[in-house]
């Protein structure tokens, strides 16, 4: 509404970029999930042809196990050539800017950049500077779109009475997803809270005021706050747990004993409030803090499944980024 006052010029981003789920239409989400299914079903040799010898750069300014490996495996399974550049052991250590790093990768032939960065919004800068399709693999406290998409795929596969074949504004109607813990610092929470309501889910955010400001309500329709974890769980078909991001607390001091008492998802709490809920966690988990062993490794847990869904979703995102949509003709 204020663009009339100020006129921030809007930038064009290369087609196939995924910088945030906030502006991802439901129909695009449906296509990405359908592509993930189609790619998943291909045999290994056929997969290798989909992005054969296409060049993908993985640019990681922050440590990562799951996301990096998963993007890398997804790219390699589709036959792409990948190169990993991390902030350590590269010219980034010498002070090279993100823009110049991106231009260098482009000059070396990269056709797509997967970026993990500690600064919110960095993928926008990289996409503007290079004109290449950029996949946001997590930026600061902002978003982690591929994580939200793989979480969605996990929910569709596991939550009963959901028609996973039909992705639209009502697919998740009647499903309440509780996201609990350090919402403030979590890009996973933001992406899920922005993505799942688009498909009709109700997202209940749960956490103490220091980690969950009231502003969170303004993320959009379908997002609510319930600070009492037990009350939230009673309504949940899905409980998504988050770790406390010590590296981003910036001086904030929490009483961990109190936190555990209020927000830990342990066996007793799960059994009492949501015995059938699907338990998810984007990782890394801090066992004994936000989640206990029995829950993490128990029958409700979809945590390892999430990781597996990650590869399929990222294959679809990479193919989309490189403009390959007609897999059948590519592999023929």
């Amino acid at each position, binding site marked *: *509404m*204020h*663009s009339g*006052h*100020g*006129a*921030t*010029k*809007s*930038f064009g981003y290369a087609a196939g970029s995924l*910088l945030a789920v*906030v502006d991802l239409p439901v129909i695009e989400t449906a296509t990405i999930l359908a592509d993930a299914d189609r790619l998943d079903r291909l045999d290994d040799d056929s997969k290798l042809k989909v992005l054969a010898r296409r060049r993908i750069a993985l640019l990681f300014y922050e440590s990562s196990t799951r996301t990096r490996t998963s993007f890398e495996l997804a790219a390699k399974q589709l036959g792409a050539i990948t190169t990993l550049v991390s902030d350590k052991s590269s010219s980034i250590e010498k002070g090279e*800017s*993100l*823009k110049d790093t991106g231009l260098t990768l482009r000059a070396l032939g990269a056709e797509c950049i997967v970026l993990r*960065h500690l*600064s*919110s*919004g*960095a993928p*926008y*800068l990289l996409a503007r*500077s290079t004109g290449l399709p950029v996949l946001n693999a997590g*930026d*600061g*406290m*902002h*978003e982690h779109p591929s994580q939200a998409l793989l979480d969605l795929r996990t929910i569709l596969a596991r939550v009963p009475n959901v028609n996973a074949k039909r992705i639209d504004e009502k697919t998740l109607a009647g499903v309440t997803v509780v996201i609990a813990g350090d919402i*403030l610092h979590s*890009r996973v929470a*933001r992406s899920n809270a922005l993505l799942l309501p688009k498909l009709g889910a109700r997202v209940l955010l749960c956490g103490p005021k220091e980690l969950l*400001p009231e*502003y*969170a309500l*303004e*993320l959009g329709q379908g997002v609510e706050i319930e600070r009492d974890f037990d009350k939230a769980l009673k309504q949940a078909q899905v409980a998504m747990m988050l770790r406390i991001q010590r590296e981003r607390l*910036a*001086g904030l001091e929490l009483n961990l004993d109190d936190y555990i008492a209020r927000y830990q998802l342990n066996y007793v709490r799960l059994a009492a409030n949501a015995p059938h809920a699907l338990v998810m966690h984007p990782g890394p988990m801090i066992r004994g803090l936000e989640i206990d062993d029995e829950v993490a490794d128990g029958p409700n847990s979809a945590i390892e499944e999430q990781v597996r869904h990650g590869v399929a979703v990222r294959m679809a995102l990479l193919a989309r980024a490189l403009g390959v949509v007609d897999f059948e003709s590519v592999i023929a």
Partner: protein
Amino acid sequence: MSDVLILNGRLVDPASGVDSQRDLLLRSGRVAAVEAPGALKDAKAKKTIDASGMIVAPGFVDVHVHLREPGQTYKESIATGTAAAAAGGFTTVVAMPNTVPVNDSVAGLEWMLDAARGACVKLFAMPAATFGSKGEEITDFHELARAGAVGFTDDGKPVLHDDVMRQALVAAGGIGVPVSQHAEDTRLTGGCSMNAGPVAFRLGLRGMPVAAEAGIVERDIRLLRDIERVDRLRPHLHVQHVSTAKAMDLIRAAKADGLHVTCEVAPHHFTLTDNAIGDYNTNAKMNPPLRAETDRLAMIAGLIDGTVDCIATDHAPHALFEKEQEFERAPNGITGLETALGLALRVLHKGHGMPFSQLIELMSAQPARAISLEGRGTLKVGSFADVVVFDPAAEWAYDVAKTRSKSRNSPFDGAPMLGRVAFTLSEGRVVFQN
């Protein structure tokens, strides 16, 4: 003969209460005559400006600009910054001290004000309130004032410690110049790059709370009250770039209590909100940050009801490579000298019905009064011939590619402007002509 005649214009000179058709004769850098239309028809001048359809007003006074010289002339220089000022209708600018090195000495101040720097409009400066703007030990206010200081500030940073701010207010109060405070409690804003609120939450950026600004304003007002009571002085606090409704309310109350407080508002704070950050546009990043719509409206209310003394741009040029960084890493600040009038007329006059005379007063007479300038901010006979002639009805779009500044970090590239400067004269010389 260097005389200039400005004919057929509508003179708006709030300091002398004039708003009607007047012709002006400028001679030897001063206003020589202000007469009813036709009365100067026999006057001869080297140059005659036909101001038909235009407003003729005192050249604007900006009490808050960053000219980056010495030390950062890749961003701006005194010559280019004052050229941008002239293009915006400003004939007086006050340079902030956060240069490299910090302007905290008489030698530094004299160097900055030296004609060799090439300022094309009148340049004043506020040296640092504390050595190195470190907030610890106040500078030599007496010597600096003798060398031309029009106030003291650590702009870019607050004078945070109570005792240091108290000393600064007492010392400046004794001389009769303001302490100009960048009101930010930096203990609450570490790692923050925008306003705290729903937009910051969505963007995953740490936000500066309203309390960081309001807390310092409140503390400074308390110090003023205390100094009036204990020291029997009447110090002058000038609050820079007010951006929050809370701080505005505190200033309004302090003024009602009779304390000597003045304040400024920047055009971006009455024009934009934090929504303008959009996709992490670093040209919408400054400190204090763009705030919420309620704050923006409170700035406008304060401008209209007289709580705000002046519009000041906080012109803060930065090079492209500095702004083309991650949002949190990019430096704070935007350029503003060339867009101030166009935004003020569009938002305040057209959008909120502010009369021309009040708008011009906020950009000339009142800022001149805030720093006690003699003979500027008015076009009374005998004043300096600092004049702006502008077409108040011209609608145009700002094109940052045409800027006089060395830098292009404006969020208003392509934005609609109302009112366009046709001529700017500094002490009788045409320094800008469109």
